[in-house]
């Protein structure tokens, strides 16, 4: 099982409600998206399929007639002259009524359409680069409902009186670890519910880590890094770790929202001089989780 499969499996594991909406993929987040395909210009040359490493594309032996009939010529920029002729002729001959896709007879080369599987795609853009006919585009949405499918809600859990949230906190080992240290030096009190994991940079946190934590029943995941524009590994570069993480966590917050785990993840920043802020962040998040109650996954885990 490759990493993407593993990740999706983990999301399925922690899902407690059926997602209903596609999730917008923020600009800086890569690796997630939707390949939009316009059949009318496609020559079924299979170049995209050959380029696709995770085998997210396949040739579907159907001809997408509805697309053919809604295409506008020459606006769509047909490189394939024969396809252009076919589209023009079909549009000219079209009668009243609904148009359905039709299947291509077995053994007839040169026709077919591209089938894209949302759960395999890593939005790497290679197919789009390989396509000679400009029939593929990458949309910044993630088709969560299609990928996750239907989710059965776990049984509700009873909250015991002595329940305390369990929060995992990823801290970068530059500023925010120093902030945590400072909070200690300053003898600031913050809830004991957190366990910190030190990592080089927030940019190094992978969704897999977050999902694994949630899968194992943590009630919340907190990520703290350097101040905006002050990442030790990128400064104010648009590629700097905490910039990445802001968009990134936004994306995963939306994803968790869709699957019924909303609010259980939070990102913030604290510089080495901000021991107080660090303590406040932890306090606020702990309170938030306390209000949310224990992770519904605990129920799942208990059932198991």
């Amino acid at each position, binding site marked *: 099982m490759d990493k993407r499969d593993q990740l999706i499996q983990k999301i399925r594991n922690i899902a407690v409600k059926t997602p209903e909406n596609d999730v917008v993929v923020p600009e800086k987040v890569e690796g997630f998206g939707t390949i939009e395909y316009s059949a009318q210009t496609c020559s079924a040359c299979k170049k995209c399929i050959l380029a696709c490493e995770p085998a997210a594309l396949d040739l579907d032996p159907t*001809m997408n007639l509805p697309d053919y009939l809604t295409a506008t010529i020459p606006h769509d920029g047909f490189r394939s002259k*024969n*396809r252009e002729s*076919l589209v023009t002729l079909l549009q000219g001959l079209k009668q009243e009524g609904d148009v359905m896709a039709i299947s291509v007879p077995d053994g*007839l080369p*040169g026709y077919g359409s591209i089938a894209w599987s949302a759960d395999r795609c890593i939005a790497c853009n290679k197919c789009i680069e390989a396509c000679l006919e400009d029939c593929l585009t990458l949309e910044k949405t993630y088709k969560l409902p299609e990928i996750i499918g239907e989710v059965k809600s776990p049984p509700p859990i009873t909250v015991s009186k002595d329940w305390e949230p369990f929060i995992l906190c990823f801290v970068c080992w530059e500023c925010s670890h120093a902030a945590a240290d400072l909070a200690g030096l300053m003898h600031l009190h913050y809830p004991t519910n957190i366990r910190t994991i030190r990592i080089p940079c927030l940019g190094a946190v992978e969704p897999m880590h977050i999902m694994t934590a949630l899968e194992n029943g943590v009630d919340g995941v907190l990520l703290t890094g350097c101040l905006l524009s002050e990442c030790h590994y990128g400064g104010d570069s648009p590629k700097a770790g905490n910039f990445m993480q802001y968009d990134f966590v936004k994306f995963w917050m939306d994803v968790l929202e869709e699957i019924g785990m909303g609010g259980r993840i939070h990102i913030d920043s604290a510089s080495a001089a901000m021991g107080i802020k660090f303590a406040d962040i932890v306090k606020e998040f702990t309170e938030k989780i306390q209000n949310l109650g224990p992770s519904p996954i605990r129920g799942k885990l208990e059932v198991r």
Partner: protein
Amino acid sequence: MKKLFLCTCNKTLDKKLDFPRIEKELKGVFDSVQIHDALCLKEGLAFLESEVSNEDSVVIGACTSQIIGIPMSEKLKTESVSFVPLREHVAWVHSDDLKGASNKATVLLRDAAIRVDHMEPPTVVENHMEKEVLIIGGGMCGLKVAADLLNLGIDVTILEPCPWDDASYVEAGQFMADKETLTKMVKELVSATASATTICCTITGLDGRSGKYGVSLACQDGKISTIDCGSIVIATNVEQKPPPMAKKLLYGKSDRTILLGDFATLLEKQEPKDVRTVLVAVDPTHHLSAVEGGYLLRVVTEAAKNGNTVIVAHSNIRTEDENIYRAARKSGVIFVRGALEKIKDTKEGMVCRLENTLESKIREFTVDLVVLQTMTRPRGDTAELARIAGLSLDEDGFITTRYSKNKPVQTSKKGIYIAGNGKMPMSIDDAIASAGNAVLEVFKDIRASTRRKGWIPIIDEEQCDVCEACIEACPNDALRLVDGKVTHISQHCEFCGICVSACPTRAIEFQSHSKESWFARLEALAENHKKMEGTKPFTFVYACSECANASIDLAGFTGKGYPTGTYVIQFPCAGMVSPIEILKGLAVGADRIVVAHCPPGGCHHQTGDHMAELVVKFTQDMLRSIGQDPERVRATYMIAALPNKMQEEVAHRG
């Protein structure tokens, strides 16, 4: 100059066509219009020769190009010629409709005028064949091929997977004839092929083209080598396999159930005191070939002559020689109609229960031995060989020929021939004939470098998406992917244009048949039809220039008339028709489109009939989906033996 020549065919066509009116209509289209009474005769040909220069383009409205095309082309100095078969496709089939026929003639001649505008000179394809021939299989047939080729001064290499042994040829070929004949023949052939190179290897790969094949070999000593050859003759032998019912009859479980070949060996060593009672079982599910039947009869006759009691249980006996059947019966062999149902291995012997259909009752025999009629099946490595060479196999695993009726040794690949048993079990006479036939084909290829002329596909690399659809579609291995580009192997090209119908991008166009030319022609045909005939519905018949065109010609010869408003448009092969030409035809207003191809499996280019059926089915689905009547498009085969086909296809419209 664009010139039109019309022929009245001994002043007979002018009774069915209004020549003065046609001439008047076409004055503006051609620079000159001339009418002759017998263009096909000596004086007519001389007239054409003197009237036409190499700068001209010419339209000839006369009889079918199938008859006059080649003789006239020899006389015409230009290659820009289009023929309109006014006699077979117009005058003779619309003899009761002078006006309609003349209108149709005008429309078709105008179409031909556009056609010559798009005409390109055909491409000359030369093929030089290397003189070396590789013969795969050194059995009886392979040796015969080698002997005949050596006799003609051609170098051969014979390839066998096993070590050489003269006696093994006799063993392997024992079913083909009696041992005496075989022994004598092997002796002769072995001495006649003494100068042949022989190697013991297996083939692992094949590249190159007809005339210049490169064969990769893995030899027994582990060495890997290649051999270059111009042509390849497959002369692989067969093996004797137990029939499907063998297991039921305890073959492999009891040593009293044996195969026919083992029985024959047993007979050779049999002492007079060892006589047995034997039941020979023929599997009713196996189509017995004549040569298998002959083998069976020879063995059982021998057994009976040796004093054994022989019962043959069968449902059909096939043999080429009725006399060996008679000899078997005369020698005392008992023939019983019926299938062996069950046997039991007992102390007394094998108890065989069989239903005798002649007596309608079940009988039991107790015999010493049950002998199974063997099935002759291709040698084990045949399938792998076929895969490497790109040949197809029939349901029994034999290699199929290009066209079973009159291309007996040609395979689907140029320069690769098949002789003898690799194609089907053969008697020695038939195998020797097929060897001679293969040698003839090889020799004809080598004797003179062939120069063929025809229109070929032209590839526009800029436009090409390298989708390989054309490569997949080409039935003749004439398109290949070389260094990431689609490359045309002109020596393999059959000038059919099937590749063109598959291309989604128009990166491959057939000379003289560009899509633009089709559009121009179809638009003009419709426009001219409407001008002449108003709203009268019209049909386009897209006919291949082989069987379908012949059938339509013959409709003329046999007077099987049909209504005017039917325009036959020739394609080199029906497989060249794509949905675009069909939809274009409908778009310009044709009421119906008929795609006429060769009979199933009978395409002259191998797959055109099948491709045409697929394309039409696909187009019908498109039409259905967009709310059009799919019945407006039809695919059908037409052959000369069915000259009524055209009438049937176009008469029931509307």
